[in-house]
């Protein structure tokens, strides 16, 4: 399906029939037990967290959940977390580290919630804290971009050792609508903005931002089993690679991966060299 335009991918990523994280978790880990709360303020339903067995290994699963029915969507705040959601995620990730459980993070959000309460309780601080702490978690972290990875709200559970993206998912600095309204002062030019933004799985793979693209067959909304099987296979490979790795190596590889992200020009005394993700 690689001939699709960026905007067609955006529409597929937001397809109303596309499975959300709770469906993925059910398929991947039927014995999943959800654990609630950040121990400080509330239980943010935009993020689901808990423990479940995947391929015979107990894992901590953290997922942004958009909700399925209208009622469910409201309950999960359309997958837009508040600071307490990110703090719950970090609490459960620290717990995973303690019990040496690998972590699977499933990203699916338009972005962190922009609201008064979110600002009062430190949305910026909550995201920043997760970015720093995930870098040092002494257990493997696998990340899946399920459908929509929007901005810092996605990245706040998205730092890891193996980053996977479904072929019809998108991952970007903000929504194409938001981007169009900044660049063109016109949100209706989102389709054009999408083509500029480099937000498809192929684009991100080319920049080495992600490690693996997962196939979906005709699309997760049509035949989810194909995508779920691909995910299991990818996780199996990733676990094989990381579960026995020494912690020092795991962490230094994780750092190197992010350390090299960015494209710029550095002039030496006599030569010009272009640094990029090598």
């Amino acid at each position, binding site marked *: 399906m690689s001939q699709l335009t960026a905007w067609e991918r955006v529409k597929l990523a937001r397809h109303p029939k596309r499975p959300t994280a709770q469906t993925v978790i059910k398929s991947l880990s039927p014995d999943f037990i959800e654990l609630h709360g950040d121990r400080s303020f509330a239980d943010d339903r935009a993020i689901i967290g808990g423990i479940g067995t995947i391929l015979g290994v107990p894992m901590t699963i953290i997922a942004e959940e958009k909700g399925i029915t209208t009622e469910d969507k409201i309950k999960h705040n359309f997958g837009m977390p508040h600071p307490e959601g990110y703090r719950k995620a970090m609490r459960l990730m620290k717990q995973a580290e303690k019990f040496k459980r690998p972590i699977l993070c499933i990203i699916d959000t338009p972005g962190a919630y922009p609201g*008064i309460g979110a600002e009062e309780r*430190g*949305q910026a601080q909550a*995201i*920043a804290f997760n970015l720093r702490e995930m870098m040092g978690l002494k257990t493997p972290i696998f990340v899946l971009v399920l459908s929509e990875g929007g901005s810092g709200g996605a990245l706040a559970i998205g730092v890891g050792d193996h980053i996977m993206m479904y072929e019809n998912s998108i991952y970007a600095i903000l929504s194409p609508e938001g981007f169009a309204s900044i660049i063109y002062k016109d949100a209706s030019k989102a389709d054009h903005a999408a083509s500029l933004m*480099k937000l498809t799985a192929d684009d991100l793979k080319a920049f080495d931002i992600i490690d693996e693209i997962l196939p979906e067959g005709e699309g997760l909304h049509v035949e989810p089993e194909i995508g779920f099987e691909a995910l299991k296979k990818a996780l199996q490979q990733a676990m094989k690679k990381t579960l026995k790795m020494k912690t020092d190596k795991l962490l230094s590889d994780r750092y190197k991966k992010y350390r090299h992200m*960015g494209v710029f020009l*550095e*002039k030496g005394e006599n030569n010009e060299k272009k640094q990029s993700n090598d």
Partner: protein
Amino acid sequence: MNDFLDQRKKQLEEFKKNVRKKTTTYEPIDIPDGLFIKCEQCGAAIYEKNLETNHMICPFCDAHFRVNAKKRLDLTIDHGSFKEINDDIDSVNPLNMPDYEDKLEKGKKMTGEHEAFISGTAEIVGIPVAIGVLDSHFMMGSMGSVVGEKVTRLIEHASNHKLPLIIFSASGGARMQEGILSLMQMAKTSAALYYFDQKGLLFISVLTNPTTGGVAASFASLGDINIAEKSSLIGFAGARVIKQTIRQDLPEGFQTDQFQLEHGQVDLVVHRKDMRKTLYKLLQFHHKGEKA
């Protein structure tokens, strides 16, 4: 009678002529551009030199004007102690965004710098520090690959030389024109701070007007001590976006330095005139070595 009227008429015409002549002889007073600057908060016209010597603070209403990176260094560090590092890294246009090169050029012209972040080593009352300053005059101090790289290198430099680290932020957030690459700079800079943190070194983050978006949600919020400069806008989401989302007016003083203090997000709010003194005191608490 008619003679009298004619005479008056003549006199009047003469008078009008002279009046016109007189007005045309007024030369406009030559006020050089920028000699006076209008304070946007209180409307007062401030003599530019007075503003300069007053830390770029309005002498009438205490409004803190935005300062560029060079001026910020002047106000903060010992005179002549700054040694810049990584000053020769330039942005490219990795996503081929329209007009990005023009915006970069404009930023360079406005600031005389290569990018929105300058960094190096310096001393504050003799205490050596690694210091970096974001300049909001360069593309709103937004963080793309270069800013992310320079922040990361500064953190690593501080880490390698066991220096306390001070970063002044002033930024609208991640740089849209570099898309996902900008987003990843949030992870990169925060990652570097993880290792800096492990070394037991001090990071003081100073959030100035404005510090929002991806910069607020990464290194700027990760100080051991987070200082908000007085009269700063600090937050994650933009006020316009929040308003559109919740469809109600925002409370008075939303996302100000005081708001952040009241909600426990910063350690202290510091007036610009007290900044150097405050930094020095905090550095002293953590300073083990000899004075340089």
